[in-house]
């Protein structure tokens, strides 16, 4: 029987099949851990006298509550928040006690959990990957079944390397055609979420297919899969292909020699079979996409950058009208107003969505020889120490600094605003991150989600612009 990519990975990881009374037990190949969602799980292990079953299939890093402020003269990143320091120290203690490797703050491989997994070559096609973080969907770009879990489940995986899972439904998100200049992977995923809504993917695993997806680089594919959760889907998948293999080859932790050949041979069997069926199909045409931007307080509230903010009075559904009214009130925007020309206080380039080297290169190309607008603050936060070193080797940091942007240490930074990097109440930001929820980037802060290109163009102009006009 023809199987989808999802079904192949699922079937290969069933430890105990589901029956009428119980969900399936699924084996987890790789468990990524960070400081925020793990402490209570380790406490549970201690209370029950349990060990970590497979420390060698577990990797910890620090990213969420870590400061991204520049290193001191001693080369150390200063942690001034005592509560954050306690949490970070707790992770160090937990990893030490349970034998889990840790990329400690400021060390050479530390970074955002969804940047380092692929970067190190731990993320590979056909694997099951979990992390106590909803953006674990990022790793689906490699054809891995990767999804976010809660802290109870973090405990389950630490103790048993398994999870109880109800089998999700599958949806094909097909995007054919060719992206126009100035339109990026970020615009594709924002357009998808605008179409299906923030709850549209609930209960589904999304598989992105079509010629526009095939044409994307791995980093672009990660941007797409990263935001699957913003459409409500726990996981997004892209079938592995030559682009995938070329990106992974010779990464530190991918198989080598004959083992590599055998792995690639297996990975080639993973793409969905001809005739495999999905429970739902959504189709977009890449030729028709424009740079996207959000105007509201969830990632589904997005429009082409040249569009106007929708009007609550145009909505027939009471609940939707109230939600839009509430969102525009929070954002301080008027119905039917354009976003082009909207003044912006802060531009944030970073997050697990858009902090990889290609994101920084794209933004740097626009900023080269230019200045960030007067009064506008721009933060550039590389996704990992490795991305940071690479960018510095290419001189990108100098371009950002010369433009007047801040060049920071690696971490989640202003995407989650629990590490000192945050908006002030009322400030407007164009952000390359993934969530524009109320207060997400700081209490009272107001977020427009967009691509690195739109972010850089906005930084130069001080207000939202259509990047296609300056390319």
């Amino acid at each position, binding site marked *: 029987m023809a199987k989808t990519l999802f079904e192949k990975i699922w079937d290969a990881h069933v430890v105990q099949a589901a029956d009428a009374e119980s969900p399936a037990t699924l084996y987890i190949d790789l468990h990524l851990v960070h400081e925020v969602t793990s402490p209570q799980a380790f406490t549970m292990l201690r209370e029950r006298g349990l060990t970590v079953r497979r420390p*060698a299939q577990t990797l910890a890093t620090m990213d969420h509550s870590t400061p991204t402020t520049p290193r001191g003269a001693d080369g150390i990143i200063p942690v001034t928040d005592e509560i954050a320091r306690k*949490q970070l120290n707790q992770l160090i203690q937990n990893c030490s006690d349970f*034998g889990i490797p840790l990329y400690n703050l400021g060390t050479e491989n530390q970074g955002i959990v969804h940047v380092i997994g692929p970067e190190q070559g731990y993320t590979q096609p056909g694997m099951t990957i979990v992390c106590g973080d909803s953006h674990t969907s990022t790793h689906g770009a490699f054809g891995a079944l990767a999804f976010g879990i809660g802290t*109870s489940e973090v405990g389950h995986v630490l103790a048993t390397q398994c999870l109880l899972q109800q089998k999700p439904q599958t949806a094909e998100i097909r995007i054919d055609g060719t992206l126009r200049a100035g339109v990026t992977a970020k615009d594709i995923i924002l357009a998808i979420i605008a179409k299906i809504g923030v709850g549209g993917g609930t209960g589904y695993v999304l598989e992105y297919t079509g010629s526009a997806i095939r044409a994307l680089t791995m980093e672009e594919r990660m941007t797409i899969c990263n935001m699957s959760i913003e459409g409500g889907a726990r996981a997004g998948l892209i079938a592995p292909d030559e682009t995938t293999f070329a990106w992974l080859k010779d990464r530190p932790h991918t198989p080598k020699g004959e083992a590599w050949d055998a792995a690639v041979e297996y990975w080639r069997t993973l793409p969905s079979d001809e005739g495999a069926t999905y429970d739902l199909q959504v189709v977009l045409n890449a030729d028709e996409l424009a740079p996207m931007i959000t105007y509201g307080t969830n990632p589904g509230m997005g429009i082409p950058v040249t569009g106007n903010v929708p009007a609550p009075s145009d909505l027939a559904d009471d609940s939707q009208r109230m*939600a839009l009214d509430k969102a525009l009130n929070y954002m301080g925007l008027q119905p039917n107003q354009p976003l082009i020309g909207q003044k912006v206080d802060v531009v944030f380039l970073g997050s697990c969505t858009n902090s990889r080297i290609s994101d920084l290169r794209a933004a740097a190309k626009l900023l080269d020889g230019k200045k960030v607008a007067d009064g506008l603050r721009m933060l550039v936060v590389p996704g990992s120490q490795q991305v940071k070193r690479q960018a510095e080797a290419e001189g990108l940091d100098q371009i950002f600094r010369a433009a007047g942007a801040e060049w920071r240490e690696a971490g989640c930074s202003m995407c989650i605003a629990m590490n000192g990097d945050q908006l002030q109440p009322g400030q407007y930001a164009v952000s390359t991150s993934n969530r524009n929820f*109320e207060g997400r980037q700081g209490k009272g802060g107001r977020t427009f989600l967009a691509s690195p290109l739109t972010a850089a163009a906005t930084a130069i102009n001080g207000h939202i612009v259509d990047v296609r006009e300056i390319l």
Partner: protein
Amino acid sequence: MQPINTFQAKAVALPIENIDTDQIIPARYLKVTDKNGLGEALFTDWRGEPDFVLNQPYAQGAGVLIAGHNFGCGSSREHAPWALQGFGFQAVISTYFADIFKGNSLKNGLLPIVVDAPTLARLTEQCLANQTIDVSVDLANQQVHVAGETISFPIDAFSKHCLLHGVDQLGYIQAQEAAIQAYETNHAARVNTVGA
């Protein structure tokens, strides 16, 4: 986890759709290393508004939250159900719940009650008109008794069993040790983070 079966509680309405976990508990409260005190930070930014429902005297002691569509979207933070429970909520009623939030809630004994859109609209209207309504939940029979009507709700058989009997899901997985060992025997580990 304590078993739950039937309980009666006062319900309050928060008729906003797509309530995300950043509203339930903002990230700046996630620097804790335990589960204590999160109830005080529940909806903390919205509680800054004097007319917010949870600030009203009538909302004190509420055990059921009648929310808008798609409750709990966004992050995987289990702090969200912990905060709701810390405030005193035992159940949330919506038309559907975000997957991770629902899973987290069920593991903590916070019951996600799914009703259809007309039912949610009716319950919300009644609740808003009366400030609160009394709700009686019967998990074994998958029913909510409210304002003279009986509403059935779905729940997967396994979660229901675990809630009714206080079954620990980790213990359930651990009981499959032989199957896990067999799987590991037949499948070499795909990564080695320790030997790196």
